[in-house]
């Protein structure tokens, strides 16, 4: 029905290019999350798809129709904004009906659609209220209702949950996901929160400095990050990186210890290991001098340095662990769970 195709998309403001040759295909009904740090161009990309920003070069196709020059209203999309952008002087019902009224749908049809959407989102009892009489979560629902009633081919979400408190955010996240699965509408969702991205997206597009770093499923991104940036961005706490030298029989760590891994590589590499992949092991090769302990309940984070060096390391150990400051804890790691990157290009090295 509505696949989206981005071909060699760039965006420049004057001489500064902010998006560089973005390409990607989104299948019908897919939930795509564009994620990246602030200023990486993710909102710009979304707004280009929406038609709120012009395309400098390249092409956007929605449902196999070139939309570069189309007005937002002609692209058959609906957008949910970060601050919801509800019309404050209209009631919830009028807010949801406004776009339909402009499209000159019959009154009965408008009412039917608004009430259907209101039932889906359970906001029927608020239909005659003004947005200012609603809580943040309810406004969020109205904003989604406004998108649903238009029955668009594509939903666009621009950080819709960032104005909600943490608990509500988790709840709304699930609701958005369920709703999208139920309606089966192709969706693009922009966020800077990697947890949100991992839980929501069928596939994630990681943007950094206007470049697509990687485009794949959450598990792909977690298991096989294509670059140092993706490796550090996906997963919490972030991956540990150590400069190492690959030699014949293993990897020489800066602490002088050799790890049996990464055979087949030679020369300097950047070694990445996730904190949760470090297994406490009294005879393990990796020793961490603990400087700080974070008790999270389900697991414990040990912050420290690789013994004998200045390289910061974090280990995530399940359960409660008490550790004295300054004591060394030893860990081992499965070679398959190590990630190797080229220190020059920052790209992944396949073992």
């Amino acid at each position: 029905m509505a696949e989206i195709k981005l071909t060699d998309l760039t965006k420049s403001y004057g001489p500064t290019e902010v998006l560089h040759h973005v390409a990607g295909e989104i299948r019908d009904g897919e939930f795509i999350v564009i994620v990246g740090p602030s200023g990486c161009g993710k909102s710009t990309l979304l707004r280009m798809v929406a038609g709120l920003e012009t395309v400098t070069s390249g092409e956007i196709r929605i449902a196999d129709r070139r939309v570069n020059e189309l007005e937002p209203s002609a692209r058959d999309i609906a957008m949910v904004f970060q601050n919801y952008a509800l019309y404050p002087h209209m009631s919830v019902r009028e807010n949801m009906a406004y776009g339909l009224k402009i499209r000159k749908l019959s009154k009965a049809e408008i009412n039917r659609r608004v009430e259907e959407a209101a039932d889906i989102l359970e906001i029927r009892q608020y239909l005659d209220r003004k947005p200012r009489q609603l809580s943040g979560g309810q406004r969020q629902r109205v904003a989604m209702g406004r998108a649903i009633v238009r029955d668009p081919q594509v939903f666009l979400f621009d950080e819709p949950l960032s104005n909600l408190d943490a608990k509500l955010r988790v709840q709304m996240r699930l609701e958005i996901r369920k709703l999208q699965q139920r309606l089966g509408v192709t969706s693009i969702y922009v966020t800077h929160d990697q947890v949100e991205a991992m839980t929501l997206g069928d596939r994630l597009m990681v943007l950094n400095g206007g470049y697509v770093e990687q485009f794949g499923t959450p598990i792909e991104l977690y298991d096989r990050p294509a670059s140092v940036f993706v490796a550090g961005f996906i997963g919490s706490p972030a991956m540990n990186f150590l400069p190492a030298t690959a030699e014949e029989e293993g990897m020489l760590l800066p602490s002088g210890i050799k790890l049996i891994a990464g055979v087949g590589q030679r020369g300097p590499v950047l070694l990445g290991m996730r904190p949760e992949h470090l297994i406490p092991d009294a005879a393990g090769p990796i020793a961490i001098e603990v400087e700080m302990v974070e008790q999270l309940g389900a697991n414990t984070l040990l912050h420290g340095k690789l013994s004998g060096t200045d390289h910061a390391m974090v280990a995530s150990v399940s359960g409660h662990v008490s550790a004295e400051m300054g004591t060394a804890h030893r860990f081992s790691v499965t070679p398959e769970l190590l990630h190797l990157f080229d220190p020059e290009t920052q790209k992944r090295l396949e073992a």
Partner: protein
Amino acid sequence: MVENRPLTAILTHFMLMLGVIAIALPIWITFVAATHDAARMTQVPLPLWPGTHLWANLKQTLFGSGLSGTEGAPVWLMLFNSLAMAMMISLGKIGISLLSAFAIVYFRFPFRMTCFWMIFITLMLPVEVRILPTFEVVANLGMLNSYWGLSIPLIASATATFMFRQVFLTVPDEMLESARIDGAGPMRFFFDILLPLSRTNIAALFVILFIFGWNQYLWPLLITTDTSMTTIVMSIKQMLEAAEQSPQWNIIMTTALLAMVPPIFVVISMQKLFVQGLTETDK
């Protein structure tokens, strides 16, 4: 700042009462004078308490020829003239400045900022400064002694344009984007979203501009020679100088009282919106 010293309390109350008297006493005297007959008003001392002639005075002022012995227009016509002028000025000002602020804030066209500053510079050129050239223009257009001549030269307003510009700038960009996605064109956005959002500001501005228009003195004096176009504010002055007779204070004061009524009415009826418009920041 909460203080509880009797001396300060007395002093502040004294100052407040002084202020009230300074403002209210002239109005009281006007009212009292409007309730006596002409004969009483020429005697000394002047009365300080209302008499019994209010209705008679009102009737003579409104529907009689006003001041006896002059061929001035009846006061109801002057009230109507003033009302027409004030309404045309305030509505015209609001309409034009809304549109120009809309153009300046939401459209990208060449010399946009130049236009804005040119509008802004007219702040330095009120009617009083450009009175001769403006008179010339209005005369050449044949608008002397007409409502158009009374109102059009006063309509262009930098202040209102600037104010609406500030109001529009506080409307979040997402509102426009949302409307674009909903398929609303520029004028649709203007009427459906911007106008309702600036409702309170429009009301506040209307109050100020209505009183500005109502109180116009110099300009109407200059371009109306026909007595049927006289406005009420200028007529009070003319009544004082009417013929070679002693001023008929009862009639003049009744006229003054009547001249106060419409602005008061506008202020009271718009009070709620007026206050909201000046204080509300939430968009």
